[in-house]
């Protein structure tokens, strides 16, 4: 009976083991230089007082649990070894003792009180969001983050950089697969940074484990949290609240730099923002808009309306031959800038520049066989978008 079973187990497991070996060696080649693979066992200590306190409490709890476990399971295994019927052990008959019951009620209560003390201190510290040096507004969208440096007139979107082909195995996976973004959040070390977290569509959650910060981004509400980063470095995080099909594909990257580097980065960024604004006054050709529009469409629209403009039946409408893409420019602008209330269509007016909005609209009106003929409405210029926004 048993030898047969053993054979069965060996036969079923051996292909799995082989498979796992093959899979592991291929995954190894591509992985990061940080903690990885088999070595990933515990919380990182992190680089802020918040993460260090979490880590410290985590380790206290872990050892308390191990201690209790050793005692409790120790007694259990002692019984299992020495109080077996096969050893001829006769059962005792005792079945209650108020004294013992009281004892094992009171001791856990004392342990809990001891644990509650550091937990309370650390929690109070977490809630101290006052007197920040820098305010960053984080706005979550399906499926990207927007960072706004309050009072600095700087804001940008941060989206997944990993190409779809890498996800579907058509191109190699880089070391930072699914942990890389188009533009990281740049923060100075040593400053108290306050995050104001919100969302525009569904609930998301902004988490960077090494900063010890996780806060839900809730549409219609603004949550506050804070961090003071101690060491420069690249810190990667994830969205931790299920937010739809792109949930696993909206990572976070924080680039913590020295104060000087931060100031010069911020100055450069402001210049770039001004240049982009200047661009909105330029008149573009159809080809320029189509080229820019295709790229911007694939970044911001294709995840729902698909690259071929056919949408997803039952969930996301097609744009190919759609009445909106072929109808009046005003409606098209309205949908793009203000979104459609009660649906998944976001208001892109605050997310994208006028140039990108104009390019996407032009692209949608002329791609996939959509043809407005000689209609002057086939081209929408950034100025038109600007006028529409100011007019409403």
């Amino acid at each position: 009976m048993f030898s047969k079973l053993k054979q069965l187990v060996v036969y079923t497991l051996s292909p799995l083991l082989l498979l796992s070996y093959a899979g592991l060696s291929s995954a190894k080649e591509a992985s990061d230089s940080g903690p990885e693979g088999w070595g990933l066992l515990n919380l990182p200590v992190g680089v802020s007082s918040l993460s260090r306190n979490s880590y410290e409490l985590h380790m206290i709890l872990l050892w308390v649990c191990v201690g209790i476990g050793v005692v409790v399971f120790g007694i259990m295994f002692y019984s299992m070894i020495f109080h077996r019927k096969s050893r001829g052990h006769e059962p005792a008959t005792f079945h209650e003792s108020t004294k013992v019951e009281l004892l094992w009620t009171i001791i856990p209560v004392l342990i809990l009180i001891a644990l509650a003390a550091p937990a309370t201190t650390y929690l109070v510290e977490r809630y101290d969001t006052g007197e920040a040096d820098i305010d960053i507004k984080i706005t979550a969208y399906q499926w990207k983050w927007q960072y706004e440096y309050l009072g600095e007139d700087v804001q940008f979107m941060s989206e997944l950089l990993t190409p779809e082909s890498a996800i579907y195995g058509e191109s190699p996976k880089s070391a930072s697969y699914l942990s890389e973004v188009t533009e990281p959040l740049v923060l100075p070390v040593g400053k108290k940074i306050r995050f104001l977290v919100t969302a525009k569509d569904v609930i998301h959650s902004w988490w960077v484990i090494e900063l010890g910060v996780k806060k839900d981004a809730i549409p219609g509400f603004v949550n506050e949290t804070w961090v003071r980063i101690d060491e420069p470095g690249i810190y990667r995080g994830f969205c931790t609240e299920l937010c739809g099909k792109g949930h696993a594909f909206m990572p976070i990257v924080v680039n913590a730099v020295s104060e000087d580097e931060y100031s010069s980065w911020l100055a450069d960024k402001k210049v770039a923002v001004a240049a982009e604004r200047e661009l909105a006054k330029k008149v573009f050709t159809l080809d320029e808009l189509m080229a820019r529009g295709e790229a911007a469409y694939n970044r911001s629209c294709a995840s729902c309306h698909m690259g071929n403009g056919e949408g997803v039946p039952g969930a996301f409408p097609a744009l190919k031959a759609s009445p909106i893409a072929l109808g009046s420019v005003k409606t098209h602008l309205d949908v793009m800038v203000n979104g459609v209330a009660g649906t998944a269509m976001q208001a892109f007016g605050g997310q994208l520049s006028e140039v990108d909005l104009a390019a996407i609209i032009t692209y949608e009106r002329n791609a996939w066989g959509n043809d407005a003929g000689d209609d002057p409405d086939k081209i929408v210029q950034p100025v038109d978008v600007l006028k529409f926004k100011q007019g409403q």
Partner: protein
Amino acid sequence: MAHGPAKGIGRWLFSTNHKDIGTMYLWFSFSMFLLGGFFAMVIRAELFQPGMQLIRPEFFNQMTTMHGLVMVFGAIMPSFVGLANWMIPLQIGAPDMALPRLNNLSFWILPFGFALLASTLFMEGGAPNFGWTFYAPLSTTYAPSTVNFFIFGVHIIGASSIMGSINIIATVLNMRAPGMTMMKLPLFVWTWLITAFLLVAVMPVLAGTVTMMLMDINFGTSFFDAAGGGDPVLFQHVFWFFGHPEVYIIILPAFGVVSAVIPTFSRKPLFGYSSMVYATSAIAFLSFIVWAHHMFTVGMPLAGELYFMYATMLIAVPTGVKVFNWITTMFRGSLTFETPMLYSIAFIILFTIGGFTGLMMAMAPVDIQYHDTYFIVSHFHYVMVAGAVFAMTAGIYYWLPKWTGKMYNETMGKAQFWLSFVGFNIAFFPQHFLGLAGMPRRYADYSLQFAEWNMVSSIGAFMYGAAQLFFLYNVIRTIVAGEPAPQEKTWEGAEGLEWTLSSPPPYHSFSTPPEVK
């Protein structure tokens, strides 16, 4: 008709017999267990390696959602209702349940509820994809149109649970044999009585939650939409006011099973019976006042967060009492290790590990790091699978000879146990590491540093899945070709009224009430 089952399909369709209905509940829940397990296998197969190989992310979300819903509402809950139907009349000395027609109805609406839910897999827009916790507005404004089927499914399942619970309460309070006072009830009956009260209290809350969703989606209200003056966080408060008692609804009957099995194979009475009853009641009470510990990252005020942290920590006390009582029952007993005992011992060890991680998660400042990661996934599978499902399996091996009059094959039972035990731990222990290292839950794909432990976890999951088919084989083999079980006492150390009846028990269980001294 009065002295035996009806012939043909009518026996099952129109049954008012507690044993037949119990059997149907058990088979229904096992089929749901296999369906939910199949979804889990799809999930683990996709997560075997980084990158999307088998399915697309939108379908992955449907799988995680359906896995959770089917396992919680279709597998675990009805399985314990089935066990209650079978065992409560036998254990209290009653001829049947108090409300037999209600019993028939509460079972027969279940398949329709799940047919509604499962049919969405084949509809345009797909099955629910917003997680088994279905947080608004992902489940309202942003949901596929099939969400309405999900809502009606939940209503039906909830109605079934409420009817089943009313029946259990009525039976336990009214149908006990003379001399069977409340403090003589077997613990399985006690835990179910308390569970039934929890169900009656919180299933209407769930029904209210999905009804508010229905209104938001179809009738222009804004309960959960901030733009209309509502609040998405309100959804979470209402959901978890149901959801937290729900996890005790699942685990309390499991406590009852283990409290029957451990004394039998220790050949020693259960230690601290009355403290077990009080501890169960305390857990049930606490379950109503700790719900927001699922929401430590939503931005509650400090005072609220502190309160929910302290209240949650308290649960460790009565739960600890139960574990200490079981172990003291084993201490200086005369132990043997048949399959039900192996499952019960595994239950105590693994459930306690789940309890430890539960205590860790109660601590708000560090739960910020654990929240919504694989650490949580690991935690609740330790209490749901190694807790509820292991106890259920223990109960089936334990009472199967009583139900069928036939004995399962002990060697096959033990082999099945070890495959389950090893597979389970390979699947779920590494998920602690994944969560602590930073892998969020409900991720269709992940970064490369998580590859190794995910692969291990998938291998364990396949093993555990295979062990359940093995279990099905063991049960069918027992029914079809098992050796006759020893009459009356199958187990040397078993106590209780069910062991005074023949195996299988007569159609009307106790037609004259037994006397309980």
